[in-house]
């Protein structure tokens, strides 16, 4: 994204420098100064858009590794390293293990690190370098290219190196070892500080160097431009030359960068990391070992890596050096410049991401960025991404890092339109080839041996006989000659046609059963009419074909089924009055092919609101109705869509207004108020389990104006693979549109039925648990009555053994499901990631968004069973522990007065703060809001996890003044009140809600154009955003529609005004502000820093 005007305006100074070209110099310094304590090991701006850049860094890291070997670790890799220096191509070798290669680089990186360190905390760097050192090593190669350009900038950096220099050597060695506790000592000597740290430092510096540049960007102002240019240019450049080298680095680099960055990064922070990062990367490399440089390049890595780092690097590099230093040096808390602290950067360019390059896993771009995946062996990161892109070899290492090891699996995630579709493979009656021991499906990582007569499972290591029909000769490279022709052997994701053994019965038809609340409140608030209208309109979006069936029922204190057979003179309404013990009133005719009953159904939907117009039944038997609907569709399974409007007060699974009880309890403090966030009893859970068993998925649309006990209700959708939709307070004016859009998306999005999913992984790891909306009956599999493109399942792993460092760890997720056309399929997604023994690599290759999603889910999961205070503490501690681990083992060289953040995770504190202040974790708020939040979180995807707590704030009053060349959506503003002016109109969106903040002194013309009202007073709080005939209105609609498209969600728009509760809601999302519920961002950083310091001492 181009920087938003405001940003530029402020940051200008620092950025200004950065943006130009060498953000580094200018930004670097300023930042550093600005940040008293903050250091961010700066890859690119990892968090937001940075990830990519992160990748680039990877490239560097590899190099770094090599260096180590040389240093002493003497890893085989070293040789590889050499190749690097030699030439870009070399990189490939390095990949095997950056470490090996690192030696040469190692040195340089060290240098690089040194500079950074030099700047402020040489030692710290020294420490970090080791880890980073490795990477830096890699960097050198890069360095080469970047060097040219970068060199200069780094020069600055190098200076710091001086200290680093000592370390460098060490680094080389340490890095590898560094991870281990021992290595440090070695390093320790040189760096003086923790040997290990030394290594990181290197990175740090490089990173820093990079960072500076990045920092520039980070600051948003200067950076953007630079980034823009860098990225744009860089990518291309990289694409060309670098690829090979980076390729690998790329994957790791990001991390490396991240790590390295931290060191130097403080500077980076200042500037937008990304843009600079790459630049730095180069620079460092050249001068020092490129280690640092490597770091930065990573930013782009994803797309770029392939390209010559050098090319891309050069330009950027220069800037890098500066920034890093500057960044790193924050030393006095009081001096923290709010403009310099890490913030996400928007990124606008589209990245082409090859999932594997040169035989190694590439580091995926940030989930929130736009990228096009080329499946070259690993599955798309959209489908599956890991919290760390290198797998720790031991449980200890993982524990030390404080990071989670988990996969986010989103099997039906929407592909980018430019991506190739997933290939379908039909093995006929034979069924897909599988490992005979662990039943893993054939994948590109299975190794064929013995002239192809046997193959070795990449997950369990078992040697299997190749079925005769499937034998194929191997080529000289050890691959099957037909590997490239067979999707299952060259693609990370394929779909197999399920053979008979996967069918327990005929694949089920697509069945949709609608249940509508027609109790008094529902009718009177217009919820019933809205539901009917939504269904009526959505019918045409149901999957085509004779196998699509629909049914409908309404309910209040009884359940009303309808038989819609066309032959009858009029529809038949069958009432099941026994809501304690429900049953289905007909064996058939309740659910009919949509083609047979469309007219009748539409007619019925039209008449339902009037039919119940005078209904005086206040009770609503949600549980019973759901059960009855289930019974009606029990024989097939399918989707049950329930439109509920009031607290279910009757029949099986009825609930009570616990809210009142809750309020009382909260006021008296104790009494475990969180109990109210647990289901009231097991009734609904038991029901849900039964639903799931018969493949019925329940989605609940809560169109309510009162408490409905979502905590209890959500159990049903959560267990059956559905979700809760919540419209509170329901407005008959503005919500029907959203209801319709939600419903339409619900039934038309990519989805599968009667699914079973299992994740397998290499020996040494085992699946610990699954989180998400599903039903689990056996420990290994999860049952998903329905799975759709919005649902994500988190899979956590634990070690049960050590992994080999030089090996790769494989993950395979197999999803057996029936598509909407009644075909049974097995979607198999494979991910193979390198294993590492180095802590610094873990940090370098950490995936912030995935990790954050993981924390988010864990927090959501914990809320009902613990106090909020405790959860918040836990969340904060998780953050602190990670940073402290980094600080202790990877950046210990730095002075304790500095807060050093790993580049990849530099935004962790910000997100953590946002999480603490989120609806789910803050003290105030309604029970239902919190429960809803919890239920959303359980299945939220990685790309939506961050926005959910850290929303996007964009000004929309000045859309017309933007050039047409800019991206559709303006760059987001930082989430603090300084960015919202009373003469502006802002949209704040979190993927779920859209809050339109209208300032008190907005130009009436804008109001008129945007909302069609002449004054603020005339503006209703529930808004239906119409498109008026003027440019502003058109642009606003464009923006909102674009956001809707991005989020796959029809935002629930609300008008917020200062001085009203709505204004407070808006304000509560400005997470950087100090609020009753939590500290300001700066304060939080200080807090984190103090905690780390106290832990270290």
């Amino acid at each position, binding site marked *: 994204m181009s920087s938003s005007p405001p940003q530029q305006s402020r940051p200008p100074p620092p950025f200004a420098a950065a943006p130009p070209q060498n953000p580094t110099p200018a930004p670097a310094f300023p930042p550093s100064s600005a940040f008293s304590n903050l250091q961010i090991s700066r890859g690119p701006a990892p968090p937001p858009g940075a990830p990519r850049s992160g990748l680039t860094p990877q490239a560097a890291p590899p190099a770094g590794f090599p260096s180590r070997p040389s240093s002493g670790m003497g890893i085989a890799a070293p040789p590889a390293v050499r190749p690097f220096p030699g030439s870009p191509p070399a990189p490939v070798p390095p990949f095997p293990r950056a470490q090996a290669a690192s030696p040469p680089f190692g040195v340089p990186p060290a240098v690089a690190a040194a500079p950074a360190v030099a700047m402020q905390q040489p030692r710290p760097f020294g420490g970090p370098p080791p880890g980073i050192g490795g990477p830096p090593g890699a960097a050198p190669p890069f360095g080469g290219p970047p060097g040219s350009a970068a060199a200069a900038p780094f020069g600055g950096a190098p200076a710091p190196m001086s200290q680093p220099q000592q370390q460098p050597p060490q680094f080389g060695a340490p890095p590898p070892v560094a991870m281990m506790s021992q290595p440090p000592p070695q390093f320790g000597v040189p760096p003086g500080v923790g040997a290990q740290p030394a290594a990181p430092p290197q990175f740090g510096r490089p990173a820093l160097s990079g960072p500076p540049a990045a920092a520039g960007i980070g600051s948003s102002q200067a950076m953007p431009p630079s980034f823009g240019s860098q990225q744009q240019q860089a990518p291309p450049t990289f694409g060309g030359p670098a690829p090979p080298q980076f390729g690998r680095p790329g994957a790791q680099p990001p991390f490396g960068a991240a790590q390295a960055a931290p060191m130097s990064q403080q500077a980076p922070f200042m500037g937008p990391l990304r843009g600079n990062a790459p630049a730095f990367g180069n620079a460092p490399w050249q001068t020092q070992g490129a280690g640092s440089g490597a770091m930065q390049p990573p930013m782009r890595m994803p797309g770029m890596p392939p390209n010559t780092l050098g090319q891309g690097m050069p330009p950027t590099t220069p800037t890098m050096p500066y920034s890093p230093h500057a960044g790193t040096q924050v030393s006095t808390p009081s001096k923290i410049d709010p403009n310099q602290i890490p913030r996400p950067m928007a990124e606008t360019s589209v990245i082409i991401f090859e999932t594997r390059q040169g035989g190694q896993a590439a580091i995926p771009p940030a989930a929130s960025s736009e990228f096009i995946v080329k499946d070259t062996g690993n599955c798309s990161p959209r489908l599956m991404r890991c919290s760390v892109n290198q797998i720790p070899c031991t449980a200890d290492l993982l524990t030390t890092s404080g990071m989670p090891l988990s996969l986010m699996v989103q099997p039906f995630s929407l592909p980018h339109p430019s991506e190739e579709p997933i290939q379908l493979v039909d093995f006929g009656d034979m069924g897909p080839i599988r490992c005979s021991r662990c039943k893993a499906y054939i994948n590109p990582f299975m190794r064929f041996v013995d002239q192809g007569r046997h193959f070795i499972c990449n997950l369990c290591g078992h040697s299997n006989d190749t079925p005769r029909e499937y034998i194929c000769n191997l080529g000289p490279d050890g691959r099957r000659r037909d590997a490239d022709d067979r999707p299952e052997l060259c693609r990370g994701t394929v779909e197999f046609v399920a053979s008979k053994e996967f069918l327990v019965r005929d694949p089920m038809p697509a069945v949709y059963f609608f249940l509508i609340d027609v109790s*008094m409140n529902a009718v009177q608030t217009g919820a019933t009419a809205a539901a009917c209208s939504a269904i009526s309109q959505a019918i045409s979006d149901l999957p085509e074909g004779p196998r699509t069936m629909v049914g409908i029922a309404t309910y*209040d*204190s*009884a359940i*009303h*089924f*309808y038989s819609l057979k066309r032959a*009858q*003179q*009029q*529809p*038949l*309404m*069958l*009432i*099941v*009055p*026994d*809501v304690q*013990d429900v*049953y289905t*009133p*007909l*064996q*058939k*005719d309740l659910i009919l092919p949509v083609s047979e009953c469309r007219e009748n159904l539409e007619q*019925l939907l039209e*008449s339902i609101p009037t*039919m119940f117009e005078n*209904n*005086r*039944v*206040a*009770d609503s038997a949600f549980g019973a109705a759901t059960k009855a609907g289930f019974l009606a569709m029990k024989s097939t399974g399918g989707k049950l869509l329930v439109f509920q409007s009031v607290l279910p007060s009757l029949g099986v699974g009825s609930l009570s207004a616990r809210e009142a009880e809750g309020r009382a309890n909260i006021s008296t403090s104790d009494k475990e108020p969180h109990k109210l966030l647990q289901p009231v009893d097991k009734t609904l859970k038991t029901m849900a389990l039964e639903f799931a068993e018969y493949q019925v998925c329940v989605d609940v649309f809560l169109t309510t104006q009162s408490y409905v006990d979502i905590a209890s209700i959500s159990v049903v959708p959560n267990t059956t693979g559905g979700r809760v939709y919540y419209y509170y307070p329901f407005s008959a004016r503005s919500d029907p549109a959203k209801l319709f859009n939600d419903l339409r998306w619900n039934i038309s999005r990519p989805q599968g039925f009667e699914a079973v999913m299992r994740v397998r992984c290499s020996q040494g790891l085992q699946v610990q648990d699954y989180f998400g909306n599903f039903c689990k009956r056996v420990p290994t599999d999860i049952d998903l009555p329905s799975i759709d493109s919005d649902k994500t399942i988190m899979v956590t792993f634990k070690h049960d053994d050590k992994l080999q460092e030089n090996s790769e760890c494989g993950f395979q997720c197999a999803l057996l499901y029936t598509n909407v056309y009644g075909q049974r399929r097995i979607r198999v997604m494979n991910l193979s990631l390198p294993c590492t023994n180095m802590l610094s690599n873990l940090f370098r290759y950490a995936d912030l968004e995935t990790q954050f999603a993981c924390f988010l889910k864990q927090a959501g999961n914990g809320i009902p069973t613990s106090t909020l205070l405790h959860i918040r503490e836990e969340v904060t501690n998780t953050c602190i522990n990670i940073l402290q681990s980094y600080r202790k083992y990877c950046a210990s060289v730095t002075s304790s007065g500095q807060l050093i953040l790993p580049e990849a995770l530099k935004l962790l504190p910000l997100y953590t703060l946002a999480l603490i202040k989120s609806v789910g974790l803050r003290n105030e708020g309604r029970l239902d809001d919190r429960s809803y939040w919890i239920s959303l979180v359980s299945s939220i995807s990685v790309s939506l996890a961050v926005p959910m707590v850290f929303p996007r704030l964009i000004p929309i009053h000045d859309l017309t003044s933007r050039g047409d060349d800019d991206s559709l959506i303006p760059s987001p503003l930082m989430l603090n009140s300084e960015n919202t002016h009373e003469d502006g109109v802002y949209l704040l969106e979190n993927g779920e809600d859209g809050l339109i903040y209208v300032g008190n002194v907005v130009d009436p013309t804008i109001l008129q154009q945007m909302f069609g009202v002449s004054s603020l007073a005339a503006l209703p709080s529930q808004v239906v955003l119409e498109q008026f005939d003027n440019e502003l209105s058109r642009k606003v609609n464009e923006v909102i529609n674009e956001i809707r498209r991005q989020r796959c969600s029809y935002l629930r728009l609300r008008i917020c005004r200062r001085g009203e509760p709505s204004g407070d809601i808006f304000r509560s999302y400005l997470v950087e502000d100090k609020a009753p519920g939590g500290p300001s961002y700066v304060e939080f950083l200080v807090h984190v820093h103090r905690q780390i310091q106290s832990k270290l001492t």
Partner: protein
Amino acid sequence: MHDPRDLIHRFSLNTSAVSASAASSASPSPKCPNPNRKTKPKPTPTQQNTKPRARETPRPGTRTSPIFPQISDHRIASTPMAADPSTAGAAAPDPDGPDAVRLTWNAFPRSKVEASRCVVPLAAAISPVRSPESLASPPLPYPPLRCKPPCSALLNPFARVDFAAKIWICPICYSRNHFPPHYSAISEANVPAELFPQCSTIEYIVPTGVPGSQPAPPPPVFLFVIDTCVIEEELEYVKMSMRKAVALLPEHALVGLVTFGTQVHLHELGFSDLSKLYVFRGTKEMSKEQILDQLGLAGAGAGRPGFPKMPQQPGAPQINGMHPPANAGVSRFLLPVSECECTLSTLLDELQPDQWPVETGNRAIRCTGVALSVAAGLLGACMPGTGARIIALLGGPCTEGPGMIVSKDLSEPVRSHKDLDKDAAPHFQKAVKFYDGLAKQLVSQGHVLDVFASALDQVGLAEMKVAIERTGGLVVLSESFGHSVFKDSFKRIFEGGEQSLDLSFNGTLEINCSKDIKVQGIIGPCTSLEKKGALCADTVVGQGNTTAWKMCGLDRNTSLTVFFDVSPSERSSQPGHQNPDLYIQFVTSYQHPEGQMRIRVTTICRKWVDGSTNTEELVEGFDQETAAVVLARYISLKMEMEEEFDATRWLDRSLIRLCSRFGDYRKDDPSSFSLHSNFSLFPQFMFNLRRSQFVQVFNNSPDETAYFRMLLNRESITNSVAMIQPSLISFSFDSPPSPVFLDVASIAADRILLLDAYFSVVIFHGMTIAQWRNMGYQNQPEHQQFAQLLQAPHEEAQIIIKGRFPVPRLVVCDQHGSQARFLLAKLNPSATYNSAHDVPPGSDIIFTDDVSFQVFCEHLQRLAVQS
């Protein structure tokens, strides 16, 4: 029905009981009269205003009716009489008399011992609301006067009145009561109708509410419960009948509809947008409260339509706010015909056989029990205390839920009498218990359960009997909904005017009687109200331990049998204090078909017979027809209640004891035996009773037996006699239609026989007649007489059929045809294959080992005279 051969076999076995010790006696008793000697007067259309009863085929026993005239004449003579207002001459002679009360003994022995020596119990068969037209006075528009409690008897012609003192003395308790002020004008010359001697039965119209503001009488309510677990064809028949019924219903009658199969569907007729129905599962037994809750009628049970509603309890939970708590349920589920005719006809058009699948090897799943519960619950909520009928059309056995009589597995047969005897009917007791509960509920609500069962298999009438009988419901058993037995019977209940059954509701019967008489109980369609009192006897027969009974449904045919016991107190047994007369008063209050509440009171006076020697008076007072019917009812009850009860032996012993006691003979000389004419037919009744379906149950299903017994218990004496001993009329060229012996010897080739066995009417063509007919002579102008002869029995049969409910099955058959068994089974086997050589040509024989009536009588004489 059944093969006569079975009958024969069984009968031959049973005979041994009688003949065990008997020596053979050559000739039949000369005293055994021809049972059919009286020619039935053929009613002409103009006479038909006398209502069905008048058209009943007179039976030999009718001869006993003089007893009544005698007594009433006596009373009339002894009482000063004003001019008869309307009566007697106009009404056709009623075989049961104007009071419609027939006693087994018209003179009561004074002591318990004597009473027991009478063998036949002291009992009265009463028809509480029989033939209002025959009453001596039109209904009185004021409330009756009652004696002071605890007697509470109503003022009646037998009361002694002191016109001067304006005092009347209750004949039953001898209390003196002052006339209330509005009777002040009373004098010898100005006597209120209730004191007229011929007004021993009189009716009052009870004003309800404030005079002058009489609310409109409640409309009749019909809730149909239709079984849909039947084949399409049967359902079409049902629809046809239903359409006819709806067309016949008065416009203001309220109608509701429940259909059921695997589940119960209660149709909400008041919902116009679409066909709306409530579905209840068949497996779950629900309490009335649950049903009401689920229908949203929980608040509605309190009030009665037309009356101000009880204010809703503030704290009472309002389960279903959609419907105002008042009687909105009425307008949702029960609508005037005029408003829901369209809806109903649409519903009927779209009614389909039950959709739930029937697995092979299984019966359809049918939840009759729940359906009836739901219907009862609905009426309880909407119409408590108002006359309403549940009319159930059943097409098969209940196989699920409460009231289940057999599992759905076809390999399990429906229980038979044998199973019941051996306690091998696993569902029986449970089902009976369920229906017993249902009966209690219906009785408390004052509602009636009618069952029309049309199936080849059993539907569970045996279990439902309790609910039908306790509520006074109608019952019809047929083979198919297409059969005329169902179609015509079903139509009958909706017909008004001439054909009307005068269906009344909510009857309460109270009995007052002289103090030495105790009431043991009642057999018949009623329920004890458990109003205990001094009048209750120690031993109980049927619905006892009370002096008041509820009859939710009653009609002009309804008959009850009241059993009395004599238990003189010491004081009353002292000579001198004895009053020669005894009085029994039956007070029936009921909801007239037109809606008003009426009270009918019948007071009868009979003589006490003193001492053991005076058998003459007893004999004179014996009513053998009533005695036969009472015994039949009594024995049916005993067979149901007592395990291992040997009915045949019990009957034989009773008959022998009776003959010993009242016969005229020399000891040990069978040939000297003779019986008074009042007893002359009794042995023949017993002979036929022994062979009847009431005693020989094993050839029938429990359902049939229950059906027969229910009708036996509720029909008039005359009709009941026909069930026991059918009448046989011969049509031939030689003579006018005339009754003939119920004997195989009555069959002749050139005769047409008409058998009226109550449940079936058989027209039997002799061989020759059949041949002629087959050759088509009746179509030839020159043989018009033959055509008339052929036509005559059909006309006669139609007359019988028209006047009867349920409509009997008409069987037309030829001699030697397979259907002829319907006739042969009822005939006295005087000629069997054993005696075939004696048979004149053209007549017939019966293949049986059963003893003939002649043999039976011989044995009887011999045993009766034994010392």
